[in-house]
């Protein structure tokens, strides 16, 4: 019998090793797996490489993880924000390595990892600082840059509903990086707000088939920005 439902965040995160590459979903207030990030802080793995679109906001979530000093490198597209003071301090102090990646390249490099692609050529970034030192080629009359996949050891994502086989459905724009990160990591852990019986999720509407998911944990729907709901559900 397959049962990917974990009883707790701690159980789901057991075994994340020092030196792991951790893919963390979310964009803005949508789809951030806050409970799993807090769990990772508790769990204590060190020397992590984190992949996320941003580099943390305020003092909670990813910013709190960075603050522990356990993240040695971040791969992201948009670190600088009005409230990215934790990252800014670490970066200016030379305490964290930054690999800045155009957002679409970030998504496609994750997709490539999940799809078994060795590398790919893309026009994005050609002739810019972010393509410096990279191989280029003119294809279809257009100059392109060779980009490599980003493989994760573990992906932490947030979905809306799931079942014990690990099938996932997302909510609105909270889908963002979840489906590609789920494919790109050796282990994917998802939080969901509802657990459905097998067969209850419409097979035509399942976005992440369970093959890409290792564990899921049910979390409460919190009336916070990260939870996606401010008012009543």
């Amino acid at each position, binding site marked *: 019998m397959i049962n990917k439902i974990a009883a707790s965040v701690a159980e789901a995160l057991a075994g994340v090793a020092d030196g792991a590459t951790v893919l963390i979903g979310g964009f803005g207030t949508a789809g951030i797996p806050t409970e799993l990030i807090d769990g990772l802080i508790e769990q204590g793995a060190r020397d992590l490489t984190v992949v996320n679109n941003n580099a943390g906001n305020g003092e909670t979530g990813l910013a709190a993880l960075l603050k522990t000093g356990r993240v040695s490198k971040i791969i992201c597209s948009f*670190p600088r924000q009005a409230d990215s003071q934790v990252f*800014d301090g670490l970066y200016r102090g030379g305490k964290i390595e930054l690999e*800045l*990646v155009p957002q679409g390249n970030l*998504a496609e490099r994750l997709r490539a990892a999940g799809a078994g692609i060795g590398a790919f050529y893309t026009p994005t970034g050609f002739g810019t*600082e*972010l393509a410096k030192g990279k191989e280029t080629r003119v294809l279809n009359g257009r100059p392109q840059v060779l980009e490599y996949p980003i493989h994760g050891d573990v992906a932490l994502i947030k979905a809306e509903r799931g079942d014990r086989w690990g099938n996932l459905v997302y909510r609105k724009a909270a889908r963002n990086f979840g489906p590609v990160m789920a494919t790109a990591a050796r282990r994917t852990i998802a939080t969901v707000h509802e657990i459905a019986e097998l067969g209850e999720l419409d097979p035509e509407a399942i976005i992440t088939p369970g093959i890409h998911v290792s564990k899921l944990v049910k979390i409460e729907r919190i009336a916070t920005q990260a939870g996606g*709901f401010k008012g009543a559900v």
Partner: protein
Amino acid sequence: MSNYQKRGKDELARRVAQDIFDGAYVNLGIGMPTLVANHLPAGLEVVLHSENGVLGMGPAAAEGEEDYDLINAGKQPVTLLPGGAYFHHADSFGMMRGGHLDICVLGAFQVSATGDLANWHTGAPDAIPAVGGAMDLAIGAKQTWVMMDLLDKQGRSKIVSECSYPLTGIACVKRIYGDLATLACTPQGLRLIDLVEGLVHAELERLLGLPVAAG
């Protein structure tokens, strides 16, 4: 010195909106370009794309009705129009890179006469770089339009023969909608599309310090 009135932000947004056609799939960049949505002519059906995974994006959410799972690229709560769709990030940027969007409107620090774009980084040594979707947007849409004031606060032209700021993309800007004029960027340089009333062609060339071919 000729006597002319610059286009204000809303007037500029209205000018851009005039050139958006019925049925167009459009991405409006963060900042000034988002104003264009307020000026789309009535009766036009335009599908707005948001890079985080939305097509058919509607106006900002009303107060008290914000849903923080439904936000735009600027991370503001928005709405979805009937017919709208959600998709993941790789699909969203595939849509962009694959040339499926008709128009993308962006802000800029500098644009070269041949359409090189600099809009992601000032290159200042102490600045923390952040690129987001700028490079994907610049080269992805069928047409990339820039919307900006043509002169900086010191009166220097933001249209240049060669960008001094770090590049976002090469020869990717088709048109510049400015507060003084609308211009096309071509391999041969700038071509005039329109001028604000009272401004003469020679004066525009003097302000920009660049030749502008007649339209």
